C-alpha cells in the first residue's frame, strides 16, 4: 500500500461502485486489510466485488453474512469477511479470523466494528453512504 490520504467520490450506479473497488485493488498488496463500512444496502459487497474482480476472482462474489467468511482464488488469495452477525471478539479464539487474515491474502472486512481493534495492517477504510436512489457517496482513507 503506497500513499496516505483521503478520497471522496459519488457513484450513480453499482458498476461505478465496483470500479472504485477495482481502483483501490490496484494499490493493494498481500497481507493488506480493507475495512468496508456502511448501512444495509449501501453497496459494501458491490465494492468488494469490484475489487475482487480486479484481483482476478472470477467466481460469484456474494454476501458472506451467513458464513462470516469466504475465500476466493484470484491472482492472490482474497478473503471476504462480514462481521454483521458478530457481536464482539473479546473472547475470540484468534485462529478463527486468522484463517482469513493471512499474510498471503488480501482481506476485505464488511461490518468491521466488531473486530476493528484486533485488526492490523489496515491499508484502507472505505465508508459508503446512501445518497438517494442508486446514488452513493464513497469515501476512502488510506493508511
Amino acid at each position, binding site marked *: 500500500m503506497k500513499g496516505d490520504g483521503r478520497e471522496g467520490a459519488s457513484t450513480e450506479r453499482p458498476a461505478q461502485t465496483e470500479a472504485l473497488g477495482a481502483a483501490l485493488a490496484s494499490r493493494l498488496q498481500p497481507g493488506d486489510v480493507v475495512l468496508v463500512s456502511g*448501512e444495509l*444496502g449501501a453497496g459494501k459487497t458491490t465494492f468488494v466485488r469490484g475489487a475482487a474482480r480486479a484481483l482476478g476472482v472470477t467466481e460469484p462474489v456474494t454476501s458472506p453474512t451467513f*458464513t462470516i*467468511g469466504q475465500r476466493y482464488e484470484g491472482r492472490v488469495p482474497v478473503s471476504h469477511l462480514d462481521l454483521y452477525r458478530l457481536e464482539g471478539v473479546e473472547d475470540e479464539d484468534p485462529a478463527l479470523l486468522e484463517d*482469513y487474515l493471512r499474510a498471503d491474502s488480501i482481506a476485505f472486512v464488511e461490518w468491521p466494528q466488531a473486530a476493528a481493534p484486533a485488526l492490523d495492517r489496515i491499508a484502507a477504510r472505505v465508508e459508503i453512504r446512501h445518497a438517494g436512489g442508486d446514488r452513493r457517496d464513497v469515501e476512502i482513507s488510506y493508511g
Partner: protein
Amino acid sequence: MILALETSCDDTCAAVVDGPRILSNVVSSQASFHEQYGGVVPEVASRHHLQLVNAVTDAALSQAGAELSQVDAVAVTQGPGLIGALLVGMSTAKALASAVRKPLIPADHLHGHVAANFLEPDPIDPPFLCLVASGGHTLLAGVSDHSSFETLGQTLDDAAGEAFDKGARLLGLGYPGGPAIQRAAQEGDPAAFGFPVAMSRDPGLDFSFSGLKTALVYRVRELGEERTAASVPDLAASYQRAIVDQLVVKLERALDRGGWGVVALGGGVAANVELRERAGQLCEAREIGLKLVPLELCTDNAAMIAAAAAHTEPIPYPDYLTFDASAQAANLAV
C-alpha cells in the same frame, strides 16, 4: 449405515442413516443462544460445536441403537461454511472414523440439501429440479443423478434467507427473520407496497436480493419511525411477496427450459408457507410433482449429509489421516 456430522454454521448436528432410512437425526439448535446477539457469534458457535459435538454424536448413535463400530463410514460436511466451525466437525469425524478404522466421506453441504430428497418419508430419485434457499445460499439445482447436481442459477449477492433476516432487522422483528416476517405478514396486505421483483426481466436463472433490501431501507426511511411501526404487517407482507415472487419466477423459467417432471424445495426458506403454496400452484398448473421434505430436513441437519455421502467416493482408512485438516478445510471452504 453412515454416521454423519454437520457443523458448517449455527447448529451442531449428527445423524445415523441407513439407505433412505433415518435412524436418528439430532440437531442441537442454538437459536435461543443466538437471539440475544441478533445472529450467530462464530467464536461462541465454534466453541459451542466443540462442547456439543461429542454429546450430539452420542445421542445420534444411541437413538439409532447403534455402536460406532457398526457404522460403515463416517461422513462430514467439508464446506462451504465457516472454516473454524467446519474444522470441529472434520477433526471429530476423522477421530471417530480412525478409531474404528472406517472410511471417511467428506460431503458438500449444498449436495446435502439436494440429497435430503433421497431420504424417507417419500424418497425420490433424479431427475428433478431443486430450489435450495437458505440463509447462506440460494440456487436452482438441476439434479440428474444421485452423486452431483448442476447449478442452473444462483444468487449474485444476498441469499433469500439473508434477505428475510435483514428485512426483519430493519422492521424491528426477531431472528431468524423468515418466521418473524411470515408471522407479521399474516395481518398485512402484500399489495400495500410495491417492492421491486429483481431479475424478473433478466432472462437468466440467477437471483438478486440486494436491491430489494435497499428498497426496504429507503421505504423505512421515508415512512419514519412511527409510520413504519404502524405499517409493519403491510411492509412484511409486501417484502415477503417480492422475495417469493422472484423465487417462483425463476423456478417457472427453469421449468420452461428444462422439462423437469418434479420440483423439490430445500433449505430453511422452504419452510415459508407462501413459497410452498405458490410452488404448489405452479406445479399443479403444469401437472408436475412437488416434493416437500419435512421441515427438519429443510434446515441444516446431518441426515442430509449422510444422504449425500452415500453417493460420494469414500476415503479409505488411513488415507485421510495424512491430510492437514486445517489446510483441507481452508481449501474446501473456498
